[in-house]
């Protein structure tokens, strides 16, 4: 549905060297999938999204949405888009802004009010509907931005840092929103720094760094692959902390009954835990120190540091 084909983007500088924001970026996103985009600051995520919406043109290669140049696609069908910076004229009121956007999005005249009310309720903006945009808190503004991207049943949804500024409750609710948005004929692209978020929501995650797509992680199959791999874990002990050193000699105490276990397979951790329990310890929690996605991300960033 979306195809980046050897896309490059170079920002020309009047003085000094040109800046390469993207280089030889090739990727296909399929209908029905949620694709995550992760990368450090300045990696090229925002440029990639600007290319996808046709706000920028590629210096090399091509971007196509359903076979169309992005601007033509957006002008014909619209794209559900939440930008990293939510920019809405400050004097507009919440409901007014949504009515304006609904009109432009092509919501039928007779449906505008009801659709706007639906998204206001969905995003919990009911008590703020008469407030001016400039009076909204950061989190409410973010929800307003999200609300305007959901006004129409778009086939392409692009969410740039969607949980930025949201409190934990709304971060959780955002996951429900994405779950509700999932549809076989829809592709959802989420760009985020929050790897935990991406690993919960996305089917695949592309890690981008220095303008290049470094790797694409299949989050679902990737989780199974980690079973046999040695990795780091954290274990928290409620009772019998002194037993940990006997079972896991390399364990590193982290305080408050927590220990770091480095370079162990899942089998080794389970065997050790069984022994701990048999010796009378009470285990409060065990979890991987880094999610599989975090590990992949760290590898990419570490590879850059090694260069």
């Amino acid at each position: 549905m979306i195809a980046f084909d050897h896309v490059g983007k170079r920002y020309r500088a009047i003085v000094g060297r040109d800046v390469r924001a993207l280089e030889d970026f090739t990727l296909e996103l399929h209908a029905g999938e949620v694709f995550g985009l992760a990368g450090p600051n300045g990696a090229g995520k925002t440029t990639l999204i600007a290319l996808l919406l046709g706000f920028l043109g590629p210096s090399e290669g091509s971007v196509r949405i359903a076979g169309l140049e992005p601007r033509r696609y957006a002008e014909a069908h619209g794209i559900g888009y939440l930008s990293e910076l939510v920019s809405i004229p400050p004097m507009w009121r919440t409901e007014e802004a949504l009515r304006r956007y609904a009109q432009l999005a092509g919501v039928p005249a007779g449906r505008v009010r009801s659709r706007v009310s639906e998204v206001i309720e969905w995003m919990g903006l009911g008590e703020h509907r008469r407030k001016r945009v400039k009076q909204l808190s950061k989190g409410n503004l973010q929800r307003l931005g999200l609300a305007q991207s959901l006004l129409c049943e778009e086939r392409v949804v692009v969410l740039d840092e969607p949980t930025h500024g949201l409190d934990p409750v709304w971060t959780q609710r955002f996951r429900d929103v994405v779950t509700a948005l999932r549809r076989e004929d829809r592709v959802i692209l989420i760009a985020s720094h929050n790897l935990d978020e991406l690993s919960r929501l996305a089917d695949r995650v592309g890690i981008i760094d220095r303008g290049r797509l470094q790797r694409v992680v299949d989050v679902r199959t990737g989780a199974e692959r980690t079973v046999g791999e040695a990795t780091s874990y954290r274990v928290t002990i409620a009772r019998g902390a002194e037993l940990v050193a006997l079972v896991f000699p390399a364990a590193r105490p982290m305080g408050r009954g927590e220990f770091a276990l480095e370079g162990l397979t899942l089998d080794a951790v389970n065997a050790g835990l069984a022994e701990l329990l048999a010796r009378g310890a009470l285990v409060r929690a065990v979890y991987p120190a880094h999610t599989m996605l975090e590990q992949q991300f760290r590898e990419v960033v570490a590879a850059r540091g090694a260069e």
Partner: protein
Amino acid sequence: MSEARRTRVGAYAAWQLRDYAKDRGLPTLIVSMLTGYLGLGPMLQEMPSRTARVSPTLLARFGSADAVYAARMAEFNQVFLHGVLGTLVFVGALFAMNGIVSNDRKQGYYRFLFAKPVTPSRYYGQAFVVHWAGFVGVMVLLALGYGAVIWPVLSRPLLVAIASMFVAYSGIAFLLSAAARWDWLSLVAVSVVATLLWARFGESAHPLARLLYLLPPLHRADEVYAWAAAPAHAADAALALPWPILLWLTGYGAACFLAGLVVLRYRRLAIV
């Protein structure tokens, strides 16, 4: 693939008109009233009142004291309108077009607007027309107010001059706003440079002087205002409708507006 969605940009004109009225029309009205008041004050003080004595010569020429007063007011209006029209239209165009495109780009408002199935050239083209209609509305209001307080001035020539000269200035401003960031400054610069260069080299026979035709003929705008300010009964041949210059000015503005639409069609919206 789904069929293209029908956007409702046309219906959005009501929002654009509201925005114009609140953000630009009201300041235009206030500044115009202040400009008019500052110009009118001294002139009205020198004006003989309706009840002032009229010389026998004037009475003999016009027939009655009322006719003399009407002739005086016609002359008064001509001088006042001729003096103020150019400023009002220029300021009105400046207010109406300032940042019409560039503001959305600078502030990032374009992101949500044009993720919707909306063509920038259609959206801003419509905004231009709405602002034009709004400005003419403001000028009609001012003329009606002036008519109620001083003397009726609303006439077809006045409306034609206002509407067409607005296109001349705002067309240039629209192109600048679509193409550059500092549009109001650019409009002032273009207006000043064009007027100065035309005044300095307009009569030159040098081949390079032909390049002046690339610049707007704003130095001749005064001819249009003089025509519009003339009393309805004026039979002076010198104040005949200046079609060529009116078409030149309006055509130049309209061409710039169309060029602005082309820029919007092909220029990427993001500022980097």
